[in-house]
């Protein structure tokens, strides 16, 4: 049967390849099926489109690994844009507006985290409520419409280049690296795994569970804010409903990437690759001329298959007992 890997690298290798192979297979298939896919233009397009989901997925994998979930991220993406638009229109400079936008999301994460840990309420329920709240605040700020965000400088984030690569790529990379560092190199990362497996055991080991939980949701919220900045910059608009549904795709990315929805273990690389798979799939199907809803349907089937597959692969192996 399966060999027990004797160190973490081999263990990592066990999880990651399955989703990597799927990604590679998809890339090859689309390259072959449609000529428009394998162009530099499309590649950059892919990166810009996928950045938002990938950034959110890095935050989501932390939340899910800790045994929780964050349903508010989609609404926070929209909120960021509206806050930026709102504040810019009132005279704030765009860099500051950006920071305010992200901080608002961090604050939302803080509130969610506090209610979850101190109030002892299911993360699903709290972030579900926060979804309504954040979306509504966004709608209120934007009067239900879209706020145009003028400014060449700001839109550079979404459409500009740095070292020949789209800026969203760099943002995503930095975000992923920060989360990676957080998970692997800091004590918090360990504690998150521990809490996700068994929060009681974790507290008996001396881990401050409440504090860690709050940090998790602050992180998730902040990353949603960063994603929101990228999104707003790409479309030069602040719209509260943009990003609706992102949370579910992020969760799907995390799950097909090998993280069980119950938490306790998680793979950042898997989540990132999972998000790539979804983005590539959507991009490829659109290039083939399929309508957006049909694309949705196929992505839906693909996701279900992906999750089933993930269950078989990741549950089958890695059982010590």
């Amino acid at each position, binding site marked *: 049967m399966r060999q027990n890997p004797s160190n973490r690298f081999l263990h990592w290798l066990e999880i990651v390849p399955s989703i990597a192979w799927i990604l590679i297979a998809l890339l090859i298939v689309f390259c072959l099926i449609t000529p428009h896919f394998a162009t530099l233009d499309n590649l950059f397009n892919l990166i810009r489109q996928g950045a938002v989901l990938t950034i959110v997925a890095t935050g989501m994998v932390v939340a899910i690994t800790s045994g929780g979930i964050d349903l508010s991220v989609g609404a926070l993406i929209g909120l960021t844009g509206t806050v930026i638009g709102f504040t810019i229109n009132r005279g704030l400079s765009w860099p500051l507006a950006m920071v305010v936008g992200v901080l608002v999301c961090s604050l939302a994460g803080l509130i969610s985290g506090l*209610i979850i840990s101190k*109030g*002892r*309420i*299911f993360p*699903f*329920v*709290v972030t*579900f*409520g*926060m*979804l*309504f*709240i*954040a*979306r*509504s*605040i966004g*709608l*209120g700020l934007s*009067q*239900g419409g879209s706020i145009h965000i003028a400014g060449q400088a700001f839109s550079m984030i979404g459409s500009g280049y740095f070292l020949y690569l789209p800026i969203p790529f760099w943002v995503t990379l930095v975000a992923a690296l920060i989360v990676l560092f957080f998970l692997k190199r800091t004590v918090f990362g360990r504690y998150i795994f521990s809490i996700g497996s068994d929060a009681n055991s974790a507290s008996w080991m001396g881990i401050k569970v409440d504090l860690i939980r709050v940090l998790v949701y602050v992180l998730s919220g902040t990353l949603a804010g960063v994603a929101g900045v990228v999104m707003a910059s790409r479309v030069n608009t602040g719209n509260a409903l943009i990003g609706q549904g992102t949370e*579910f795709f992020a*969760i*799907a990315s995390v*799950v097909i990437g090998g993280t069980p*929805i119950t938490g306790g273990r998680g793979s950042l690389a898997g989540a990132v690759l999972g998000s790539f798979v979804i983005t590539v799939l959507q991009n490829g199907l659109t290039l083939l001329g399929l*309508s957006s*809803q*049909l*694309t*949705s*349907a*196929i*992505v*839906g*089937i693909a*996701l*279900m298959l992906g*999750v*089933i597959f993930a*269950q078989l692969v990741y549950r089958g192996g890695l059982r010590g007992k």
Partner: protein
Amino acid sequence: MENSHVKPSVRPKLALARFISVISRLAVLLIMMVVMSFLSHSFFTTNNLLNILRQAAPIFIIGAGQTVVILARGIDLSMDSVASLTGVIMATLMVDNKVPFYWSMLLSLGLGALLGLINGIIVTKIKLPPFVATFGTYLLFKGLTVLWIDGRVISGFSKDFTFLGAGRVFGIPFIIFIALLVYLIVRLLLRYTTFGRKIYAIGANPEASRVSGIKIDRIVIAAFVISAMLATFGSQLYISRINSAKEDFGEGFALDAIAATLIGGTSFDGGVGTIEGTVIGALIILLLRNAMNLLGVSGLWQGLATGLVIIIAVLGDTYLKKVAKKYEG
């Protein structure tokens, strides 16, 4: 004799716990109504109150389905597209194919049952977590809806049909009676049948239920079928009221249903909750909307109110539980 030191009158009973859960919410609802009647003259008019009931009815009906599923420790995120798919199919049957409305409704309910069955099978046999499974089917059914209706908007339904959603009996919107009927049936199902007992047992402790010999898979599948059928029925009434069907109506059904259920006191991990709570939950949501309308607050802030109420409701329940535990000593 153990426990003799704890006063008999305050020892926690299930019926009492459920009663308190419902009563406290009813109290909140009544307080809200009283406050509203002071804040706005148009609030306490028959017209307005009927309006609230009329709009709360479909939310309740769909919410009832979600309540059954959540009680069994599941969740149904596919309601939006179950509603739209069955809705557009029914619409084309009625308008394009001139099938009599009752057959169309029946067939579409049958389709809803099938969609629920699919959800149930994916959750029980393929063992996907309900959250993931129903999100997948949500996307799947959404795609099928688009394939079927292809951007059309269907309208022009028969008078008999539109009566269901838009008609009145003795001045009271008919849909309220329908909601009442649904309430009675679901209450009967949950409180007075073995099926209902099993749903609560599975939600409270799936492993213990399994040990007791309860066929979990069967019950869970049934719960998803019920949920989908109620989503279907809700969408039918909705179409009937607005007299049109298109591919994206149904948006927000699942969220509202979950909100009504949670506000109503049903615990997210199942086993605890009442259908009465969901009724009140739907009413509270509508009351908030109505209040905002009357007070001139933009409808955009509805979400804020709903979200706050969800969190407050759940925090309140946690607090009540703590108090109950104190009495236990």
